[in-house]
């Protein structure tokens, strides 16, 4: 069973379309509503998703892990991480899923830098991403072209190993770090990203580094 996990926080504007478009490409869509103040949960349910609602806002990493737990419970063989803000293109799913299966790897990371022409803001492309890549190499010891891309496919083996404890955005570094730790096989695959908003800024980046640093001291 191929399950899409969509973490969503105040995504009322996009969530209905995202879920509707996802349906033909996966067996099931799980939307983890991270205590949105708008009607994200209602719209996701209307669109036919299985909705899990956090009673308190816990962050994107926490939402993904909630999705993982539920997907394992439902008997998922593969899961897809897909952002709820409509920045990804559903036509990337099937080629990516096929590539993952054919190459026999455990994890597929989406990348904005492998051919597809995403409209990445200038500051992100030339300042934030290079710093992010450096941080990834430092904390995760993984060389990924695209550091924080929310498009991923994990098989069941990876799902059992990748337990996200980084509740915030630092999960995007923690996932490759866990992939490396458990010696899971991975590939990168080009995906299209359409920016509706800037996303992570400098402040977000500083928080990620802080979270990764603090993680070293938490049992």
């Amino acid at each position, binding site marked *: 069973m191929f399950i899409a996990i969509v973490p969503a926080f105040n995504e009322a504007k996009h969530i209905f379309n995202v879920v509707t478009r996802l349906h033909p490409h996966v067996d099931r869509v799980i939307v*983890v509503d991270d205590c949105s103040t708008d009607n994200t949960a209602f719209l996701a349910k209307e669109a036919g998703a*299985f*909705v*899990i*609602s*956090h*009673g*308190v806002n*816990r962050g994107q990493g*926490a939402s993904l*892990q*909630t999705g993982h*737990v*539920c997907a394992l*419970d439902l008997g998922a063989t593969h899961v897809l991480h897909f952002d709820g803000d409509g920045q990804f293109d559903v036509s990337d799913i099937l080629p990516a899923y096929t590539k993952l299966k054919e190459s026999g790897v455990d994890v597929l990371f989406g990348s904005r830098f492998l051919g597809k022409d995403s409209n990445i803001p200038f500051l992100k492309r030339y300042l934030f991403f290079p710093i992010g890549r450096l941080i990834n190499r430092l904390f995760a010891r993984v060389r990924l072209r695209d550091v924080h891309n929310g498009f991923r496919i994990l098989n069941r083996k990876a799902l059992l190993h990748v337990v996200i*404890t980084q*509740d915030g955005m630092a999960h995007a570094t923690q996932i490759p770090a866990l992939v490396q730790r458990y010696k899971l096989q991975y590939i990168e695959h080009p995906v299209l990203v359409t920016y509706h908003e800037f996303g992570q800024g400098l402040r977000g980046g500083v928080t990620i580094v802080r979270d990764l640093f*603090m993680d070293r*001291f*938490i*049992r």
Partner: protein
Amino acid sequence: MLSIFQILFVCFILFAIFGVVQKRRSGDLGPKGALFWVLFWIGVGVAVVWPESTAKIAHIFSIGRGVDLVLYISIATLFYLLFRLHIKIEQVGRDVTTLIRKMAIDDAKKSLKE
């Protein structure tokens, strides 16, 4: 002759040690923790009653004044405690997430059955 400040401080220290002993008796504080805090307050007491004693220790570390030594140790201790507190908060945050996750999944399953 002790100054008013010193007398007040010694009273406070005795009160603090009394508190530590009580916490130890009620089981809120382990033997190591109790020993640390008793020694800590005795150390503070020595520094208050005999201020020149801190100067002697300061000289060993090539620090000019005893007050400076106390200040440096205090700042270092405060930073350390703040760091520990930060870690504790992070841990509590993760525990909260685990709870929220369990509740959310249970609720979703329940609504699916209905």
